């Protein structure tokens, strides 16, 4: 006869003891499986929530970016339309000025008489407004180690006396004895309005420090025209006339050129820093503002995401703390309960132990019968506890339905091996008691 017959027969005979033992092990296994599954499910839910929120954030940022792009595009269109009506700037260059040379140097090398601007102002050309004579040269600044700068002499706008409605000048003249500095110059020299500065042997008071323009203007000094002519030894000479906000469309520039040619034969007329530049600057500003808004939105969403992450981490920590107390407690209680039931089982089977010893069963065989029973209790408890714990966790845990399924390989294996081990440990002392039961004592008592 197989010893297993004895083990299974006894289990079926004393079902209640067995079931109570299985229940104790199952409770421990269920708590462990449930806790682990809940944690894993919580982790999976956290990942899913964060991934969803991140995707939402990206989508919202993208939508915002698209919207801003669309708005910038609309702004461009609107500006283009508006600027059609706003007119443009033209530049009148001296006779014989090569445009390639002009572009490469950044100013006209040729000169023309300053009186040209007077002529033009009296010529009653309707499309031309806000005339401004300029003398511009690239020079060394001896007081600053010979650094290269652009010197621009200007006398402000020349009024058109024949116009009935006088326009407000859009460029103010530079007062005598004053100087205006480009961004790189005042910034590099740490100067400010009101400071004194010496240029080419003469001292000027700084009238104004220009904002950064990102062009050669940043290394330019502006002086009254006469002062510049004097410094450069070019009395009565200019090399450009700037006409600002001319009231015609660029398509009519040929007409303007013809009208100017009548007054100033040989001069060259070209568009100068007008709508394209303004539009680009406006677009850049709008785009920069849009980027700033996008960045701010991204930062806010990232902060919200980080907050959510931190909240989930805190919840997880709380769960961990709770489980780290509950699981060992339940394991301990289960072990004690299983051990007590095993002791009770040994007590009830004293007569059986006595007769088995009498017919020749060794104490090792007796112990193995009780340990085998304990292992079966562990296996049954593991299966029941795993099913209850994981099933319960899957059924009742909060959060989106994601994460581990019912069968989790390592957890199942761990519980299937751990529970019988735990049960066997709990049954160790009772099995030893059974093995050490003195058959003589038992048979004599009974």
């Amino acid at each position: 006869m197989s010893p297993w017959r004895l083990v299974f027969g006894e289990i079926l005979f004393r079902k209640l003891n067995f079931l109570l033992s299985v229940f104790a092990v199952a409770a421990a296994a269920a708590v462990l499986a449930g806790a682990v599954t809940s944690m894993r499910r919580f982790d999976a839910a956290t990942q899913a929530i964060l991934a969803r929120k991140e995707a939402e954030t990206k989508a919202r940022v993208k939508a915002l970016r698209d919207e801003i792009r669309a708005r910038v595009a609309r702004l461009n269109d609107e500006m283009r339309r508006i600027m059609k009506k706003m007119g443009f700037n033209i530049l009148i260059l001296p006779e014989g000025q090569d445009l390639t040379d002009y572009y490469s140097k950044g100013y006209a090398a040729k000169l023309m008489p300053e009186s040209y601007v007077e002529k033009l102002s009296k010529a009653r050309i309707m499309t031309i407004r806000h005339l401004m004579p300029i003398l511009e040269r690239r020079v060394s600044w001896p007081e600053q180690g010979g650094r290269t700068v652009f010197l621009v002499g200007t006398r402000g706008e020349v009024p058109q006396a024949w116009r009935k409605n006088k326009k407000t000048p859009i460029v103010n003249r530079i007062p005598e004895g004053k100087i205006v500095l480009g961004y790189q110059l005042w910034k590099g020299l740490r100067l400010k309005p009101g400071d004194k500065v010496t240029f080419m042997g003469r001292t000027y008071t700084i009238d104004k420090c220009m904002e950064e323009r990102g062009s050669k203007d940043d290394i330019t000094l502006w002086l009254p025209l006469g002062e510049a002519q004097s410094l450069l030894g070019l009395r009565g000479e200019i090399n450009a006339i700037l006409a600002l906000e001319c009231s015609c469309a660029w398509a009519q520039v040929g007409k303007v050129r013809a009208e100017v040619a009548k007054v100033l034969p040989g001069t060259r007329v070209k568009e100068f820093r007008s709508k394209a530049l303004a539009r680009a600057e406006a677009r850049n500003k709008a785009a920069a503002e849009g980027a700033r808004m996008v960045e701010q939105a991204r930062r806010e969403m990232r902060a919200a995401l980080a907050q959510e992450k931190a909240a989930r981490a805190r919840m997880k920590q709380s769960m961990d703390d709770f489980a780290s107390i509950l699981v060992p407690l339940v394991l301990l209680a289960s072990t004690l309960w299983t051990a007590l039931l095993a002791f009770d089982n040994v007590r009830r089977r004293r007569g059986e132990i006595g007769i088995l010893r009498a017919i020749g069963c060794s104490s090792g065989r007796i112990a193995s019968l009780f340990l085998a029973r304990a292992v079966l209790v562990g296996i049954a408890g593991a299966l029941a506890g795993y099913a209850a714990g994981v099933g319960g966790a899957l059924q009742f845990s909060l959060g989106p339905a994601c994460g581990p399924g019912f069968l989790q390989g390592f957890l199942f294996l761990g519980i299937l091996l751990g529970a019988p081990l735990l049960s066997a440990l709990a049954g160790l002392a009772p099995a030893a008691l059974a093995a050490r039961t003195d058959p003589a004592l038992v048979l004599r008592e009974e």
Partner: protein
Amino acid sequence: MLEIKKASRTWRGPAGPVKALSEAELRAEPGDFAIVRGPSGSGKTTLLLLAGGLLAPDEGEILWDGKNPYALPPGERAALRARTVGFVFQQFHLVPYLTVEENVLAPTLAAPLPDGRKRAARLLDRFGLAGRARHRPGELSTGEKQRAALARALLLEPPLLLADEPTGNLDQESALAILEAFEDYTRSGGTILLVTHDPALAPRKGREFLLREGRLREVSSREKEPGPSSREVPRTPR
């Protein structure tokens, strides 16, 4: 062959040591039916446990065919006991959740027997329990229980059978059947040591011993009082 040589045993009780057996001497040859009589508490069960290798004597020795089981390590002693001694108790000590057949086969847990089932079937048939093989002890009468216990004791065909009040719980008919089975066993060369307090229980052929206050002595044939025949074993009120 069973030899008990000057065996003594003292139990430690709450009121101090109690001498259960004092220098007991007994020798039973194959075919002997030794019956030890004595009142309750005279040391009968102690003598039986000593003889069965379950309780080491404080002094003296026990020999099975000249071999002292208590000189062996516990595992070897258990294995030797399985092959050498069969036990029959007043309380039967059947395992309640095993069938009658499984109870009879229980000794094979200690000493595997290739034809155990066949032997068990023969024994069950011999003791009129063939129809009860699949029943559990709780479904048997007391006589059937004792016959099942006897079948279990005889499964490994041990040379020595130890019986403690085997008929104490039985009616007359059942007691007679058990006694007949014992006589059959001795006729086939087995040795029986039976302890009882029942003066009426007497085999037709056997040696009789008296145990009083732990002292054992053989009763000579002249001392034997005439009593009822073994065929009329009366049920003694307990």
